[in-house]
């Protein structure tokens, strides 16, 4: 098993290398650069040209790439042109914000997904299942930006239950209980917005698995043994039906740090998704490169974690 894990991690190296190259080439096609948006009248166009020359913006992409790789190998991912701080520091701050928001979102997603999926599968075709199906269609059709705006309008603007954005109230002392509660308070509405939209997949997979297993041969065997219906569900149907959902959890771990661009944007939550979008708009290439590579690494780690979970819960699958 350790061999497999090591092998997978080693494969990451060429993957990251190819990906970073692609990102650099693609970035060279993008119009504009980090200084395009600066229209400060106190800075003369000549000065901007001078800066472009000085920062190497006119170098061909392979020269830029070589420079970036040399720095990256020594742990320096560059400095953000818009925030004027090292990329690692910037991402570090944002990653923590996104992590907590995503964790809360995932929690809500799985609580809704698992409970609705089980109910839907068990009472397949009954009114309660139809109601859940209606909800999944609605959630699937609803873009998160739309629901986000609706939620802000009702719960923040009209009812004033939640703040409209940000992470914490102004003037709170970090480390105090009220600071902690304020952060949770700020996360709740974006988390709920995502948490009611994302469970669709979990519900549908779980439901179809349960419906299939209900009529499977080994469930028939269990019935022929005189096993009570409740035990048939817990021991035979659900244990098997949860396998794909458990495997899916690994991929969601990538989401923990990747965050949701749309929800973070709507709630002006300073997380990774928001940072990613901002960096592209400001042509802050150092940040964009670092983020894309981070997302790629997370995705590969997610699949690896999925495989590890599968081998832990399904005796038929063993990582060698």
């Amino acid at each position, binding site marked *: 098993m350790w061999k497999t894990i090591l092998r997978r991690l080693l494969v990451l190296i060429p993957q990251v290398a190819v990906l970073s190259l692609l990102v650099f080439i693609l970035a060279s096609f993008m119009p504009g650069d980090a200084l395009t948006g600066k229209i400060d009248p106190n800075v003369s166009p000549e000065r901007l040209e001078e800066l472009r020359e000085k920062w190497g913006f006119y170098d061909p992409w392979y020269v830029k790439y070589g420079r970036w790789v040399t720095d990256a190998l020594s742990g320096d991912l560059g400095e953000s042109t818009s925030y004027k701080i090292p990329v690692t520091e910037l991402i570090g701050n944002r990653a923590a914000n996104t992590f907590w928001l995503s964790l809360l979102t995932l929690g809500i997603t799985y609580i809704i997904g698992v409970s609705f999926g089980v109910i839907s599968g068990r009472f397949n075709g009954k009114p309660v299942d139809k109601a859940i199906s209606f909800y999944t269609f609605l959630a699937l059709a609803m873009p998160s930006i739309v629901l986000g705006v609706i939620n802000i309008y009702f719960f923040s603007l009209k009812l004033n239950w939640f703040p409209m954005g940000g992470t914490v109230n102004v003037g709170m002392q970090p480390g105090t209980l009220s600071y902690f509660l304020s952060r949770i308070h700020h996360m709740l509405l974006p988390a709920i917005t995502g948490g009611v939209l994302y469970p669709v997949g979990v519900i549908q997979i779980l439901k179809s698995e349960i419906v299939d297993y209900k009529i499977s*041969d080994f469930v028939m065997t269990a019935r*022929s043994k*005189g*096993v009570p219906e409740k035990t048939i569900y817990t*021991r035979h149907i659900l244990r098997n039906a949860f396998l794909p959902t458990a495997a899916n959890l690994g991929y969601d771990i990538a989401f923990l740090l990747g965050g949701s661009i749309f929800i973070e944007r709507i709630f002006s939550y300073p997380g990774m998704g928001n940072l990613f979008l901002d960096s592209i708009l400001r042509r802050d290439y150092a940040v964009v490169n670092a983020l894309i590579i981070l997302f790629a690494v997370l995705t590969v780690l997610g699949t690896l974690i999925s495989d590890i979970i599968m081998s832990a819960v399904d005796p038929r699958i063993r990582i060698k």
Partner: protein
Amino acid sequence: MEKNELLRIDNLITSFRIDGQHYAAVDGVSLSVSENEVFAIVGESGCGKSALALSVLSLHNSTYTKVEGNIYFKGTDLLTMNVDELNQFRGKDIGMIFQDPLTALNPLMKIGEQIEESLTFHMKMDKKQKKARTIELLEGVGIVSPELTYSQFPHELSGGMRQRAMIAIALACKPSLVIADEPTTALDVTIQAQILDLLKKLQKEMKSGIILITHDLGVVAEMADKVAVMYAGQVVETGAVGAIFKNPLHPYTRSLLASVPGVDSAEGNRLHVIEGMVPSLKNMEREGCRFAPRIPWVDKSEHEEHPEYHEVDKGHFVLCSCYKNFSMRGEG
């Protein structure tokens, strides 16, 4: 009622709902199984054998299936019971062996756990006793290293081993009746013989009754005491195995027997094939003799309008009068 009658099925009708209408897959079957008796039910695919077997323990999905008639087990009607009452019988008094041991075992549970499960719900045993009994069962069904198999998962066993484990599950609580639904169909020929020998040996030891569902006439001749031949949901001929094999009367029984390839049949002889196919549930003609479309050379007047059972010998019944002057095509 016979003295040691175990199970009596009276006019069983099992119908499936298709597009809002019910179609009977088992259509008025009556039969009786005694203690220490192997009762074979034989017929083509789709003739209602398995539907009959599953009806005994009400294992059909109740949403789509209607089961009418009476099934008396030691005098009590199983069909009037609710699930909780049935669960007292399932696994304890009546054990069930399924066709495909590959899918009939839970892939996530160890073999030992799956056998112990029936003990848990029917026997007052502690953990140690259960394990001891399970090991004993595994040994009894001819598994070489029961201790190892106890903690193995189904995918780690061969098909034959899995079917042995399945038999151990069915026999765990020493049921007085075992329903074996095509227990050897999914297995290799060599393994089939082993499993049949095992079943026979265990049946003799435990003196239990067996309902053996099969489409293999060889198995019937080998194992059974009595046999019922089913066609299109009905029993067309029933009697002692010796009588049926020596003196098959119903055209369907005769055609089936003629379709068995013999080792000693002359070279160049073509295998007998029954014309046509078993009608599907929806398109089945339910009036008159159901086998008539497959023996088109027999004159209509030979069949009865409402086929009845004729007792040709003691305990040997044949449905419809078309057997009387029947000759196979080509026999003249």
